[in-house]
């Protein structure tokens, strides 16, 4: 401090600065109000279409519901009646098969990354590519399924669809698995080590057991995601109006059926599309709600989108 000089300068600044600040306070307040209103507008703007989606799907979807719709085969194009039975069956089969392929691989990858791999360049590379994979367009996965399976088998098939969906599933499952396992306190593992148990046994019986509901969460999350996929199914299972005829043959799926129905110019088809959409949304949302309740109870959060 430069003695008296500095002090009087400070006094001068104090007055000047305070005056400017008081003058600017009104302006700052107005800007603040505008920003607050903007944020609220954003919420409203986003909520309108999203509410509309739910209302329309429920309103139009319920009209389509009857026994025939749930169990019957699609009628010929342009004719009323018929149902989406094969699509429901197909979705269950393809998603089920994809889960049987994808879940174990995803879980094993996650276990490897969290328990055995540590932080070297290879595991980090796997982690990184895993993350990138989750962001890749699903249509590309469909192409992969087409090239690797459809061309080799020579036919659009359940296998190809399940394969494509499982590629989408694996990174999601492995990431959630890794994160849940990381939450398991080290003391539990150390207790095991102290008893002289082999590492793989500890992983399997102790760590895995305490993390099981978290891993389950990851699997359910991935199922909810792939159940709604449409694009990869176009080039793998193709879609058909028949019930399941074999793993090497085309099947139908709900999202695919919605797409086909929506492109028909007949009102009966469109009604059925809404009905199928309601079915699909119920399936996916039921899975998500269950999953979030599960996650909340466990005290960690999961994200649906990455």
């Amino acid at each position, binding site marked *: *401090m430069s003695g008296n000089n500095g002090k009087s300068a400070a006094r001068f600044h104090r007055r000047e600065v305070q005056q400017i600040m008081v003058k600017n306070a009104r302006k700052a307040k107005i800007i603040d109000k505008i920003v607050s209103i903007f944020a609220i507008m954003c919420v409203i703007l986003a909520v309108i279409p999203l509410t509309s989606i739910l209302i329309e799907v429920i309103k139009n979807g319920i009209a389509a519901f009857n026994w025939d719709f749930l169990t019957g085969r699609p009628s010929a194009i342009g004719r009323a009646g018929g149902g989406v039975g094969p699509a429901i069956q197909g979705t269950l089969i393809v998603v089920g098969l994809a889960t049987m392929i994808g879940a174990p691989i995803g879980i094993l990858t996650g276990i490897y990354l969290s328990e055995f791999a540590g932080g070297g360049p290879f595991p980090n590379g796997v982690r990184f590519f895993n993350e990138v994979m989750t962001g890749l367009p699903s249509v590309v996965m469909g192409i992969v399924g087409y090239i690797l399976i459809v061309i080799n088998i020579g036919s659009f098939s359940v296998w190809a669809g399940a394969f494509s969906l499982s590629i989408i599933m694996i990174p999601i499952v492995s990431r959630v698995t890794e994160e849940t396992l990381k939450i398991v306190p080290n003391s539990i593992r150390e207790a095991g080590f102290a008893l002289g148990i082999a590492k793989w046994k500890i992983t399997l019986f102790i760590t895995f057991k305490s993390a099981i509901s978290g891993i389950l969460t990851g699997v359910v999350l991935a199922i909810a995601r792939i159940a709604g996929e449409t694009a990869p199914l176009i080039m793998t299972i193709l879609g058909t109006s028949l019930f399941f005829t074999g793993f090497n043959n085309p099947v139908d799926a709900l999202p695919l059926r919605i797409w086909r129905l929506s492109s028909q110019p007949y009102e009966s088809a469109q009604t059925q599309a809404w009905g199928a959409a309601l079915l699909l949304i119920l399936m996916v949302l039921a899975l998500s709600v269950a999953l979030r309740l599960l996650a909340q109870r466990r005290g960690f959060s999961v994200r649906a989108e990455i």
Partner: protein
Amino acid sequence: MEDILSAKEISSDTSETTRRIREEPRRRSKVSIKGVNAWFGSKQALKNINLEIEENTATAFMGPSGCGKTTLIRCLNRMHEMTPGAKAKGQVILDGIDIYDKSIDPVIIKRRIGMVFQKPNPFPTMSIFDNVAAGLKLNGIKDKKLIREIVEESLEGAGLWEEVKNELDKPGMGLSGGQQQRLCIARALAMQPEILLMDEPTSALDPLASSKIEELVHKLKKDLTIIIVTHNMQQAARVADRAAFMYLGEMIEYGFTKQIFQNPEQELTERFVSGKFG
């Protein structure tokens, strides 16, 4: 500091602690805390606090952790209520204006009262210069020359100028912990505050850095009123003119630091200052 409070102004309050201080020569009252209560959710953190804080003094709030000293200091610039679920009631009168009055904008209050936190929290993306200038820019001051002058003066005031004058455009996060804390003090000083609240400003620092902050307190109280929260009794004894001892949300004793340490009235205070608990 020549202004002496007329007895009338405080005569309304006849509590024991206030009576004691009234006997001493007085500076002008800067802040008077009247009946302040504060809650976190349903848990009461402060119970009916009454206190007069005088201009150009350093006042220390001390007590064991959880006694409400941090809550009290955060009530003085209405920072307390920014915590979700927290609320405060009562009057805090700053130069005759109740800052809890409905017509008062809490934003304006914070412009007059600077605050320094437990852990140094400079803005990590900003340079040293921008950190100090942040408050000025926030409040619409655009005059580059004025900003530069104030930044230099504030850094000087915080005893940091000599150390950083050649690296003002380097990131503030590159400084050591003690320097960061002084940077935060400079950032608060740039706002030309009348009061500086310091919430355990040395708890994250080593002894050497702490002693620099303590020196600063001595220097700064010539120009402003300082209120410092500390759990460190020696620190309170070194820096404060007045000390308040709090326990479980209540103000146990308030008076001259010397008196609190050498001849406390309350047994609880004596046990605390003699290190028997806390």
